[in-house]
């Protein structure tokens, strides 16, 4: 009796959690963003931060702070926070989709070489003097890396998780060598250091146009990916099983992989090759909400946004006034998680 009672209250608590987990994450994201904006050498209170935002949205006649502090919020910290949230959401989404489509728990835009390809494309366009087209270069680079990875998998007769990772290492090494060569050959002093820090993954210097680009790519890709939630569940048992459940396997795979390449390209163009977010976040979220993609995808997006916001805030404030590339922090967190996944899924590798 007591057991049944406990179970019922437990399951109703679980039901409540199921219902409110997404709104709770949205609230947490807004609180996180507000707090992130207050972090930094110039002291800004949460109230002031929102005052500035409302003022610039035309909902408040005057800014609550001086012009300088207003600019710190509106021109520096807010666009950077928005870019961080978007990059985190996009990378988490890309990782979740790749893990489902390739049935590979280790799939991640960074580990499979997409980020390196995107970086090569971005640096190539940048050094060719087409800085404005950098996101396009990144997209083309990540698409090329993806196509190469799929081609090699085909030649190997099917992509097992370990084959995919090895192929990814190879592609990443190749793209990195080409990127280093380009930088070595063309870049000088200052730009060298800047490119290097960006390559390690950094959101320093993100402005509104970056934040807008990230947001636009999410608006374009997220609905396509979210709509495929049920179909992605069907991939759990492989392509034939998904096809027998009515999923247009080939068309869906190409649509989703293109969306993934686009997201990765844009995120790399804005934030550099920030690793492991697409690996860590989906796995952590799966532990909490289960494997069904209808729930997993939106949760991963929000958790990715929160994760990136805090790691970026840490990156710019831990060693203030020096800034750490955020990719170092995500790698510090991500590499042990990678190991954990390897141990947990021992059988597949």
């Amino acid at each position, binding site marked *: 009796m007591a057991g049944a009672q406990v179970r019922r209250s437990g399951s109703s608590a679980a039901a409540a959690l199921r219902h409110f987990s997404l709104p709770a994450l949205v609230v947490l994201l807004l609180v996180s963003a507000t707090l992130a904006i207050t972090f930094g050498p110039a002291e800004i209170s949460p109230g002031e931060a929102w005052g500035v935002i409302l003022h610039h949205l035309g909902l408040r006649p005057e800014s609550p702070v001086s012009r300088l502090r207003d600019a710190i919020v509106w021109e520096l910290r807010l666009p950077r926070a928005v870019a961080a949230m978007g990059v985190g959401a996009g990378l988490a989404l890309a990782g979740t989709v790749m893990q489902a489509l390739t*049935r590979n*728990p280790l799939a991640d835009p960074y580990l499979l070489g997409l980020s390196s390809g995107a970086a090569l494309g971005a640096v190539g366009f940048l050094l060719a003097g087409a800085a404005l087209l950098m996101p396009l270069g990144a997209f083309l680079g990540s698409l090329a890396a993806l196509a190469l990875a799929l081609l090699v998998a085909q030649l190997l007769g099917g992509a097992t998780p370990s084959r995919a990772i090895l192929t990814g290492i190879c592609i990443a090494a190749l793209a990195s060598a080409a990127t280093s060569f380009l930088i070595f050959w063309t870049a000088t002093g200052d730009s060298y250091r800047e490119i290097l820090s960006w390559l390690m993954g950094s959101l320093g210097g993100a402005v509104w146009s970056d934040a807008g680009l990230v947001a636009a790519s999410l608006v374009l890709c997220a609905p396509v990916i979210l*709509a*495929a*939630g*049920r*179909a992605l*569940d*069907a991939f*759990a*048992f*492989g392509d*034939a*099983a998904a*096809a*027998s*459940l*009515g*999923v*247009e396997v080939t068309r869906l795979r190409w649509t989703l992989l293109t969306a993934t390449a686009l997201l990765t390209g844009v995120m790399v163009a804005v934030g550099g090759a920030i690793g492991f977010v697409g690996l860590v976040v989906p796995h952590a979220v*799966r532990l909490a909400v*289960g*494997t*069904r993609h*209808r*729930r997993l995808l939106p949760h991963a997006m929000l958790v990715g946004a929160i994760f990136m916001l805090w790691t970026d805030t840490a990156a710019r404030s831990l060693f203030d006034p020096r800034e750490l590339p955020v990719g170092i922090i995500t790698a510090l967190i991500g590499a042990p998680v990678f190991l954990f996944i390897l141990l947990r*899924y021992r*059988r*597949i590798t």
Partner: protein
Amino acid sequence: MSGLRVELARVVLGGRTIVREAGFTAPTGAVTGLIGPNGAGKSTLIGAMLGLVPLAAGRVTFEGADLAGMGRRDRARLAAYVAQSATTEDRVSVRDVVGLGRIPFQSAWQADTDEGDAAIVAAALAEAGMSGFADRLYPTLSGGEQQRVQLARALAQTPRLLVLDEPTSHLDIRAQLLVLELLRRRAAGGCTVVLALHDLNLALNHCDHVAVMKDGAVVAEGAPASILTPALLLAVYGVHARVLPGAGGAAPVIAFDRPAAEAGPQYPD
């Protein structure tokens, strides 16, 4: 023409002809066994029937409609498929696996909490005898349990055509008989059932109709008792066998004596 009809089906994979001019009929409301030695092309023909493998030539119709050629979603609402084995590393619950069977009927943005779907899933789990496993994680189940969960998933598709590839291969004898009983009940309810089988005694005693494959072609088709004769088993499997009448009304039994010296397929190992 009622039931499933396969006519002159040919399947070429990687330049090799796996199925050549194969044809058979699976009558509506009957259990049809597809038998034949390893490598005869049973799984490939099943895949081609369901549009999972391209058909190089020939036709597959179900109740007069072009089954291999129709849209995937329409076909998934009509026909359910259970593969030889289905594994995943995802920590997905048994209930969610069975819920996959509702995908062909759900729209992309429809809410997840459909009570009709939940009832169908629960009924399918009960029919397959897996209700007690609903909250278990699929990868932690034994091969036989996974097979029965996949059967429940196929039942959740509310199919009019049920195609199963070796559905009893991982099952103990009681579970085998329960599954065949379930399929017989489904057939009696109007479902057309086709299953690839290795156990010829199961085929003899539980199928209404059998089709025998060898080297990519269907070489015989008809009532099990008239098809599964010592002469056919020698020609197709290369074994000497006898069909023993069941004593006192029991089911007949095929007894296998020894492999033939020269006839039949050669196995590389």
